[in-house]
């Protein structure tokens, strides 16, 4: 060991009772292990939390795709004729509308409150979906590299750093073009509600936008900290238990018999004949010690007897 002071202090130079020496040594070892574990787990849990959030985000996007599909296949055919009629436009026929509405309901649950979902487009029908400069960058990357299926990373916002996961939105169905190609193909009621100046001119197989899930970076850290805290707490509880048990065992196994032997040895120094080291029947080190004392006691008794005899003769 490089630190003789520390070594002496911890491993016992005999300055303190055994029990204290052991306690100090154990605490130091435990504290050090917890510290190392926390530092390592901090990294591990950070990765895990991000993974979990990426997984959830992927799930959201898949779920929203399913909602879109459902709307396209099952709802639109029923609602679309209404939109050709004289009444107002029913957005329930729009895949994007149902996806964003369903997500809003999801978001109302406390578990998902932190998450937000956007279907950003370069040329959106609803100007709410207009891609900002960051989203435009993401969409342009998808457009320039069609093999790219997911992008994840960090972005900074006025509310602090955010973690995002994005996937491209591609026009794969001819049915989408009814409402997104030219104004004269779209239902008149849609034009009255959304205008005819944006959200048109989309092409088949074009990547027009992206699904983007964002979570505050803070939420990632919080998830990590929760796992870390629980684990650290478990460690501490386990170590305290180990410490207490060790302590009890030490007491039962060594300290008590040693104190007993020590008391008897003191007694034997005055009246060896009345003392009996019963521990000598044990087969452990305590027994060994007791047998040594027993022999010493007998020697002492013999010596004392001889002394007495000599005194009587003279």
């Amino acid at each position, binding site marked *: 060991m490089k630190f003789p002071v520390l070594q002496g202090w911890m491993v016992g130079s005999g300055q303190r009772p055994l029990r204290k020496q052991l306690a100090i040594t154990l605490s130091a070892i435990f504290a050090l292990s917890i510290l190392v574990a926390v530092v390592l787990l901090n990294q591990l849990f950070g990765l895990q939390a991000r993974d979990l959030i990426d997984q959830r985000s992927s799930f959201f996007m898949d779920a929203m795709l399913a909602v879109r599909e459902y709307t396209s296949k099952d709802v639109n055919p029923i609602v679309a004729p209404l939109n050709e009629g004289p009444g107002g436009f029913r957005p329930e026929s729009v895949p994007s509308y149902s996806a964003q509405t369903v997500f809003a309901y999801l978001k109302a649950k406390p578990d998902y409150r932190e998450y937000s979902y956007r279907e950003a487009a370069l040329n959106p029908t609803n100007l709410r979906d207009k891609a900002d400069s960051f989203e435009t960058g993401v969409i342009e990357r998808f457009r320039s590299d069609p093999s790219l299926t997911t992008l994840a990373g960090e972005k900074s916002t006025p509310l602090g750093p955010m973690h995002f996961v994005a996937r491209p939105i591609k026009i794969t169905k001819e049915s989408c073009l009814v409402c997104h190609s030219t104004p004269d193909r779209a239902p008149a009621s849609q034009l009255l509600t959304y*205008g005819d100046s944006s959200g048109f001119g989309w092409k088949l197989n074009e990547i027009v936008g992206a699904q983007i899930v964002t979570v505050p970076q803070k939420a990632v850290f919080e998830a990590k900290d929760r796992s870390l805290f629980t684990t650290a707490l478990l460690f501490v509880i386990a170590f305290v238990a180990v410490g207490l048990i060790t302590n009890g065992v030490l007491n039962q196994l060594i300290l008590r018999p040693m104190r007993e032997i020590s008391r008897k040895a003191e007694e034997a120094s005055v009246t060896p004949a009345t003392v009996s080291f019963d521990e000598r029947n044990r087969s452990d080190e305590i027994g060994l010690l007791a047998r040594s004392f027993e022999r010493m006691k007998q020697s002492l008794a013999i010596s004392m007897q001889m002394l007495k005899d000599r005194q009587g003769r003279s």
Partner: protein
Amino acid sequence: MSAAGFSARGPLLAALAMALGLMGCGQQPSARVSLCGPAGQLRVGFVGAEEGRGSTGAVVLPDQDISRLRDLLTVASQCEVMLEPVASPEQAHQRLGASEWDVAFLPPGLAALALESSANRGYSLLRPLGQRSQSRSQLLVRAGSDRRAVADLKGARLGLLPRGSLTGFYLPLYNLHGLSLQSVHYALSYQELLDQLRKGQLDVIAWDAALPDPGGDVRVIVNDPNLIPVGALVLSQPLVAADHQPFLKLLDESAAQLPPSLGYVAGVLPEAQPLQRLRTVVTNVESWTLPLEGRPYAVYGRKQQLKDEGVMR
């Protein structure tokens, strides 16, 4: 046992504290309370103060204005902002009716409508929007038309802006009360209506006196006396109850960064009086059945007279 137990626990607790301290790093405290809607977002509607002005339902706001406004609102509210600029008052009408906006920049007709909703669902006026202009509701016919008075408009084809517009929808219908029309048609801009009037597809259209002179080939047949008040920035009741002063203060301080076309006036409460007066028109027309595109329509229902004091001219 106990003495040793304590001396063993002490350092362990210290290690725990150390671990906790370590985890505390990397978090910054959030400085201000945020103003969010019930869904954890601030849903902002944007119609702008003037309706029907674009050529054909033109883009409501230029792109850079959208992102600047969104950022500004995010900073002011400390909440994720979903900014929805809409081209059509009809869209805004639906959103307001369903309380789907927490904050909205509205023209006068929609502001009056927003006030109208019931106590816990309605909106409060925060700031006036738009310049006071000579805005007044008019109805136009072709110059050569032989329709001279309101009564002559019976059986006409009427062109309106979508529901929600004061000069484009509520006042024209209010003034045509009692007539049966051949059909009602909608467009997103006055210009579109004017084109259709000129082409003979419509017989009478809604018009706003503040618009540039439409030319000699059309003439005004109905001139509504009510001067149109300015629009308003409105806030939903739940947020009015929340602490919205920091939000408003920051908007006031950054008024210069808001799109100039918005006409945001910092530090002033809008005059509720003129809007309240026109609410009567809005509620009356709202209680009627909605005229459908291309269908015949009898302008009929409850009609209360406006009180006189606000009448100008």
